[in-house]
């Protein structure tokens, strides 16, 4: 029996570590840099270097490596799929052939590269959400996007939306799980028949879920209003973002690491 598993995608794990204490803006920008760096990796040795950096980061942020990997579990299929596509669709020296399927030496290389790139991408991005509470994260994004507010970009609203979305992910997962069980108990058959039948079978799960989401949204809006929420104006913060010296160092460090890795890769 497969039920929705409590997944750790985007879950914040509170801890007291130098990484946790960094300014979210620093972390967001660093992750962007790291992701750009990863997209340029080609050489296997560079992958090893990135891997070591990942281990180091996990130690430094006091998040067990196991948890970091767990966070990437939901995208493993996507990773394998990407690798598979490259494995079979890259032209080159043929190693193995079966009907229209062929595996080339270039394909194997590409598959490894793309698969690993995507995997590392998710792991590094995961660090951001693992070490930054949704509130901080949205604060950071709000501040980073504030310059665009002048052009009508709703920075505060987007940030608040994200906070709430992240807050309700676990709740809605539980809810979906419960509805799923309830309909199974009523004899719903969710895993037989063709695609159309299966999609139809999910109506009894989706309709109640929508009803609940709307109900929750209404309740939450009311609760927020009762607590004097009136948008971003006049709102202060418990922990105002403060760019510290550590953030400058971290930012510089990331820049150096990415530059070294990329150069090393180009050189090799």
């Amino acid at each position, binding site marked *: 029996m497969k039920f929705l598993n*409590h997944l750790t995608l985007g879950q914040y794990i509170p801890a007291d570590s130098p990484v946790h204490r960094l300014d979210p803006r620093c972390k967001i920008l660093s992750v962007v840099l790291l992701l750009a760096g990863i997209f340029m990796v080609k050489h296997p040795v560079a992958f090893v270097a990135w891997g070591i950096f990942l281990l180091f980061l996990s130690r430094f942020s006091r998040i067990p490596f196991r948890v970091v990997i767990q966070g990437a579990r939901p995208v493993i299929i996507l990773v394998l799929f990407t690798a598979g596509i490259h494995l079979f669709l890259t032209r080159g020296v043929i190693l193995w052939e079966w009907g229209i399927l062929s595996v080339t030496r270039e394909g194997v290389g590409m598959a490894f590269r793309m698969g690993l790139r995507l995997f590392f991408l998710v792991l590094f991005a995961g660090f951001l959400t693992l070490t930054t509470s949704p509130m901080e994260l949205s604060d950071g994004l709000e501040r980073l996007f504030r310059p665009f507010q002048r052009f009508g970009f709703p920075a505060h609203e987007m940030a608040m939306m994200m906070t709430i979305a992240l807050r309700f992910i676990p709740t809605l997962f539980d*809810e979906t799980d*419960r509805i799923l069980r*309830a309909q199974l*108990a*009523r*004899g719903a058959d969710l895993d037989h028949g063709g695609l159309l039948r299966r999609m139809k079978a999910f109506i*009894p799960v989706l309709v109640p879920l929508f009803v609940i989401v709307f109900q929750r949204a209404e309740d939450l809006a009311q609760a927020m209003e009762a607590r004097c929420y009136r948008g971003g104006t006049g709102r202060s913060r418990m922990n105002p973002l403060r760019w510290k010296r550590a953030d400058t160092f971290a930012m510089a460090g990331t820049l150096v690491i990415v530059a070294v890795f990329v150069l090393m890769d180009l050189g090799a």
Partner: protein
Amino acid sequence: MSIRVDSLGHVYHPGTPLETKALCGVDLMVEPGTWVAIVGQTGSGKSTLAQHLNALLLPTSGSVEVDGIPTTAEPSALRMVRRKVGLVFQYPEHQLFAESVLEEMAFGPRNWKFSEEDIRETTTRTMKLLGLSEELLTRSPFQLSGGQKRRLCIASVLAARPDYLVLDEPTAGMDAPGRRELLGLLKGLVKERIGIVHITHDLELALAMAERILVLEKGKTVFCGTPGSLMDELVERPIRGLCLPPILELVSGLRDYGYHVPFTLDAVELADRLEKEIRT
């Protein structure tokens, strides 16, 4: 003919850091036409046990048998068990989805491949059993009142003609008249030879309604027996995770003082007996 739970154990997420023992060595027997209550606090394992009775969860150790069919992953047994044991979750109105009450009622029976004629027959019958008038059939389930929604949900499970009905806090959030009406209707089902498993954290309610009570604490049985013996035991020694209903607390105090009054939830009986005691 009965549900037999035999030294049932359940472990969530085995082998992971989230591993939790939800149930450990629980025995239970539910016969048709009886009302069994499972009482315990949040996290006592009562909801886990409920899902075992309906094969939504399968035993990690021990066994659950419904009319001789063990709950296993084997699909035909699974469906058979789910058909025999109806399960009504907490706040069941959160699973309403159909366009009309009729469609909502027909969902279960259709899943169990009842004939259209049979569906019509069972719908009319169960709606009557739960005090819902036939005029509601064409209405949207979302237009009903809170109490009606609750009863519709129970009726929609009952429409599949299960032999047992497992209800998780069926009266949660209802006011006194609504609660009394629902409990009366459920009592009527027992007369129709349906076995009721009532999961609740309200000890007073369990004592008043059930013929047998199972008290769970942290996944283990701390008591299993009749309401009478539970009351006797509660006064002798506190049972973990349960607090005495006020009236029993009063009885206990009166007895300590030397009055010979019985353990009862019936206020009038208690008053009568106490009067006799005081006058002699």
